[in-house]
């Protein structure tokens, strides 16, 4: 079950983050970003779907991808806390995406070599998507960090607000056929700091890293997200959509 658990962690990360991004739909600062943010959401939820489908197969109890997404409670969701953070302003959203993609891109890169062919297959597609997210979000970090006084202040505020949440990316269930998450950390820190330097952003002093997501211990925002997302499935048990 180590593989099942690791797949669920990853799938939940992708679904929750994709859901957050989809909340932007129609509300972005410019039309181009409406398209980019829905693109991000599409990629993430698409990957989540593949991961849930594979998790369901690995579990072997006849559950479907939708059962896993729609019929687990908040306490059964294993996403890290970073991805459930509210959208905040555009700076917060882009930073959250940047942190996530800076982790996932090398993760999938490494997963290409997995002995598990399904995982290698998912990785091939996801890696390219994450490289795009990383580039697009990274460009915004620089633009906003080195834009106007207001945008620099907002970008730096986002950095401070999300500082307790990035460490948890490197935690989670080990399993043979998936890359070691902790091993990615040095490269992650180096990449992030390089972009911060370009963006004139300060890397804050260390703080206590919030975690608990991998044990289903979330903050209060996830429950509301799930009640929204799962409502129809819950209101019509067993229906096909």
């Amino acid at each position, binding site marked *: 079950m180590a593989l099942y658990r690791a797949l669920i962690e990853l799938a939940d990360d992708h679904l929750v983050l994709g859901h957050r991004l989809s909340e932007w739909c129609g509300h972005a600062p410019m039309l181009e*970003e*409406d398209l980019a943010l*829905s693109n991000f959401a599409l990629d993430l939820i698409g990957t989540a*779907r593949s991961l849930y489908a594979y998790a369901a197969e690995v579990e072997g109890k006849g559950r479907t991808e939708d059962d896993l997404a729609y019929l687990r409670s908040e306490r059964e969701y294993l996403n890290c806390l970073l991805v459930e953070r509210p959208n905040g302003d555009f700076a917060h959203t882009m930073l959250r995406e940047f942190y996530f993609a800076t982790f996932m891109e090398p993760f999938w890169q490494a997963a290409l070599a997995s002995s598990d062919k399904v995982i290698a297959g998912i990785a091939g597609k996801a890696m390219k998507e994450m490289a795009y997210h990383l580039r697009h979000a990274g460009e915004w970090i620089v633009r906003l960090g080195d834009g106007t006084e207001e945008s620099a202040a907002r970008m730096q505020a986002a950095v401070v607000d999300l500082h307790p949440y990035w460490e948890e990316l490197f935690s989670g269930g080990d399993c043979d056929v998936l890359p070691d998450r902790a091993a990615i950390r040095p490269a992650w820190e180096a990449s992030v700091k390089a972009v911060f330097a370009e963006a004139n952003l300060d890397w804050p002093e260390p703080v206590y890293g919030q975690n608990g997501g991998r044990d289903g211990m979330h903050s209060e925002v996830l429950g509301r997200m799930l009640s929204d997302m799962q409502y129809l499935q819950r209101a019509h048990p067993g229906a096909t959509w």
Partner: protein
Amino acid sequence: EEFLAAFQARIDAEEKIEPTDPMPQGYRRTLIRQIGQHAHSEIVGMLPEGNWITRAPSLKRILALLAKVQDEGGHGLYLYSAAETLGVTREQMTEELHAGKAKYSSIFNYPALSWADMGAIGWLVDGAAIMNQVALCRCSYGPYARAMIRVCAEESFHQRQGYEIMLTLCNGTKEQKEMAQDALNRFWWPALMMFGPHDGDSAHSEQSMKWKIKRFSNDALREKFINATVPQAEFLGLTVPDPDLEWNEEKGGYEHGDINWDEFWRVVKGDGVMNRERVQMRKDAWDNGAWVREAALAHAQKRAAKIAAE
């Protein structure tokens, strides 16, 4: 006079008018208004469906709906670009929308109240839009016609997708089928209104037909839509909410009941259930994003200055 005649001759010869070609002020104005409205409709049209993305009942449906709404944003982009070839900026058009001066399709002032509305909007609203848009693929203004060709292909995919949502609901539980019927009840008449007033009451129609901005009359397109859609409703096992709907053997088409034009004009004039909220949402998005757009501009300038200095 001479110029107008020469222009009309080009139109009559089915030549495409291009951005740098000379054109009458009225032609330009009509197109700016119409393409702008069309672009705004795509953008405002993202909102009712956007309202259900986070509540879509399966992963597959989330993805399909997201992709659809994204396509609408893309259509908005092509259309704003087409309008810009006529000498208006996207910013100007956006401001007119927010000031309530520019219109958009009234259908988006009706609320999306249930998941079935995602079906009904795709099936009926995109279906009605396609009737108009297919005709516009042959519009005399080149950039508009070309934008429409791209749009049409995607719209017909959306329409099938909407119909498929309806079909799934109609094959589902009793509650699901009721949901589907209810959505049809609420969207049928507003969809018919999408074609605009009867030909006799349509302000801009005649000149637009002459200029081949418009190629079919409102009533003709509406009938075509009804004739295509009624059998689809029957196949779903749903009842079209028009007791006067009747097959007319002679003309080989349906006769429909009276359209509530009071409602139509009321909603056009701003008093639909959702008018205020739709415009407010767009305005809020724009205003809340001002600092982002300013930062992007400031950064680009800094960058250009740096490159110039090197």
